[in-house]
């Protein structure tokens, strides 16, 4: 069984759906979004709290409301939505083809262009190398929220939250909703990383304050978790926190399997998603990527705007079959203060990235820092007073793209006056 479409989009989260809508608005006839879940919408479906839609829809919605908005908009735009359809790999042979399994069968979906929008997931305790017992009561936020909001499962009595970024406070809200008391948040970093309102709100409403500079050393207890062993990084002192639940939040990894399974797609060494240029094109002609797969992770509105931007680029590519894609362009490297930059490659001095901004992911805290973009000896851009917060975006404008020498050495972004 086989099918053909103009554009196949893998992942029906905010970025995939926004891309699909943009493609239809640009006049592309057949746009298919393929998602393995039983409903479209991606991660927001199970984030039952407000905080969605500010930058893209200019209003505040809950996660499920936001997901519904995009699903309905995609349906109205005439996007072909396919749920319960898992893309398991690339079909062999010439052209772009995706192997798809669904209750309707096993098929190859052929497409002129493919957009990867498969998102990101949180690293679990093993992926973070946390040793100890394998008792029950160990969650990521994703699993926790599905247990609570989809199936109303009992979770536990006392929970420790690992992480102190936005998603960690989302986990706190979910735990409270499920009647679990939160004994604390812990982060290896020297400060919490979320908005003051979340942080202060959690402190005021639930009496929860993050413990900073603390590392999780082991999980104890079986068949049920009974305690989490913590170490203070400054003096090496250890304590065991008595709890029956632990939620590992944040520490995202791009869901990059399809990108890595394709020899033609370069994968970024730090962000681990496909390397894309400012239009969202990967190193493989006809394959694009957007959303949290490329920038693990930003908020949903940013992912959606990244999808919309890539969708528009795909539509142009279908018409022009842009030859620039075959051209290597120049990579963008970062110094040690930054983990990654998105997009990570420049192939055209005319294409701005989504929102006209590059997203940087800092490795450290800094309040008023100067950042600099260089190519060889040349400084292309220089900006002062930037704030750096790990796990949060630092944005820089993209006007300097015009000055890039596409045959020159790698671009470099880093701290520097």
């Amino acid at each position, binding site marked *: 069984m086989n099918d053909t479409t103009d554009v196949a989009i893998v992942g029906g989260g905010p970025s995939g759906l926004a891309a699909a809508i943009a493609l239809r608005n640009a006049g592309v006839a057949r746009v298919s979004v393929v998602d393995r879940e*039983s409903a479209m919408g991606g991660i927001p479906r199970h984030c039952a709290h407000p905080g969605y839609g500010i930058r893209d829809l200019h209003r505040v919605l809950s996660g499920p409301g936001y997901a519904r908005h995009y699903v309905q908009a995609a349906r109205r735009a005439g996007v072909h939505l396919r749920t319960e359809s898992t893309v*398991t790999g690339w079909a062999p042979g010439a052209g772009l083809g995706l192997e798809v399994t669904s209750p309707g069968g*096993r098929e190859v979906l052929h497409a002129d262009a493919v957009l990867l929008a498969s998102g990101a997931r949180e690293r*679990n305790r093993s992926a973070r*190398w946390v040793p100890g017992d394998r008792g029950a009561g160990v969650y*990521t936020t994703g*699993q926790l929220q*599905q247990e609570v909001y989809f199936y109303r*499962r009992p979770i536990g009595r006392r929970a420790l939250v690992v992480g102190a970024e936005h998603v960690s406070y989302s986990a706190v809200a979910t735990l409270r909703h499920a009647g679990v008391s939160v004994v604390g948040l812990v982060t290896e970093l020297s400060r919490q990383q979320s908005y003051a309102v979340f942080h202060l709100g959690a402190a005021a409403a639930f009496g929860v304050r993050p413990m900073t500079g603390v590392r999780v050393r082991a999980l104890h207890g079986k068949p049920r978790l009974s305690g989490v062993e913590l170490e203070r990084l400054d003096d090496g002192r250890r304590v065991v926190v008595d709890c029956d639940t632990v939620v590992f939040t944040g520490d995202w990894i791009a869901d990059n399997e399809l990108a890595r399974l394709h020899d033609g797609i370069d994968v970024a060494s730090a962000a681990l998603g496909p390397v894309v240029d400012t239009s969202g094109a990967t190193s493989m002609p006809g394959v694009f990527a957007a959303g949290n797969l490329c920038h693990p992770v930003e908020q949903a509105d940013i992912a959606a705007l990244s999808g919309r931007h890539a969708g528009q680029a795909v539509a142009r590519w279908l018409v022009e079959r842009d030859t620039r894609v075959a051209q290597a362009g120049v990579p963008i490297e970062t110094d040690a203060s930054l983990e990654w930059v998105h997009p990570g490659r420049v192939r055209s001095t005319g294409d701005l990235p989504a929102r006209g901004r590059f997203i940087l992911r800092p490795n450290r805290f800094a309040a008023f820092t100067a950042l600099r973009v260089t190519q060889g000896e040349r400084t292309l851009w220089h900006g002062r007073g930037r704030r750096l917060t790990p796990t949060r975006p630092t944005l820089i404008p993209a006007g300097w793209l015009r000055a890039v020498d596409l045959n020159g050495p790698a671009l470099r972004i880093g701290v520097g006056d």
Partner: protein
Amino acid sequence: MYDVAVIGAGVVGAAIARELAVRGADVVLVDAEDDVGNATSKANTAILHTGFDAKPGTLESRLVARGHTLLSAYARRAGIPLEPLGALLVAWDDEQLAALPGLREKAEHNGYRSARVIGASEVRAREPHVGAHALGALEVPDEGIVCPWTPTLAFVTEAKRHGATVLLSTRVRGAEPRADHVELATTAGGVRAREVVNAAGLGSDTVHRMFGHATFTVTPRRGQLIVFDKLARRLINHVILPVPTAMGKGVLVAPTVYGNVMLGPTAENLDDKRATESTEEGLAQLRAKGAHIIPELLGEEVTTIYAGLRAATEHDDYQVSFHPDQHYTCVGGIRSTGLTSGMAIAEHVAAQLGQRHGLDLGEAPAPDGLPEPPRMPPIGQAQSRPYQQPERIAADPSYGQVVCFCERVSRGEIRDALCSDLPPATADGLRRRTRAGMGRCQGFFCGAAVRRLLDDGPDAPLTAEVDQ
């Protein structure tokens, strides 16, 4: 009254129960855990050994070699995932290089003649990602990898189909040999059998003492293991073994039949038979070894970490003994090769029960003879999985409804496991039967849905939307 009570439903007890049940005995299999294969048999390195490095002349040497043959044949018929990849035992320094010819000779003493020494360039050609200091290797073409869980499940399923009774969550507390039978006291009442086989793994010394014997003591020897993401699978083609030491076979890197790569195990002698936790020191040690063996491996994501306990004893061999006067047989101390040797141990035990204990058994069926073993679910990466089979999905669309995305486990397979002869009691048990939840997300995407099906039945709807 049963003919035989087997204490312990690990791979060894399961193999014995199967052998005896297929040959007509009325068997009861008793285990303290809530599932079969829930102790050492669920947490090992899953290598199908040839026995090339065993101590020549031991029972272990003989039974591992025989077990390799029996399990390979059985796996083919029962659909147990097994891949005969071959092993390279790599020498990393001159001393180890000098030891390779001796290891080959030892292999020959063990009756294994296909091992040969290969040079550094051949090692590099066959394993381009191994560390730079590989000086040579002993190639052992018949070492393989096998599913650690399906053999036990297949053996118990087959035993049940031949009338065996399985008593789970039942701990044996005491034993009283009588003139023509044994009375076992358990946490779920008395069990009476003409013969008792002790296959209690870590508890085999305790059970042995219930019969008045103190000939060995089990010292749990922990092995910690790290399972890397499937995207690491491209890094190796063989099982990569180290030169063995006094403490055991050493730390290896091997593919798993699910398509991951495994690094381990450690070897730590402990006192606590429940100490199955992993430790900072253990992981640090494995990290260092792994970086040496396959430097790129540590750049890949870790999917899971676990530890198992070998039932080591003060002796250099399995602790198998027959006590016809007490109607008692001990199959203890099956430390680091029992997955491979289980069927051969069972064959040996059945023969002795017939000859020395006068147990009346039918003919041993030939390895490829009737009756057909049960056909187990194809959970191996090298097998055709239901999600890949158009005909199967057409006949039953639930095989196309993927619930665990990372491992591509369908609702149909989960239903089959929940409705099988041996349904799982826990999420862990379901994972061993289907792979559901053992992938790279470790439940981030599917954990809640899998638990839903386990708790509320295989037809429970999987919620799509949250009401506000």
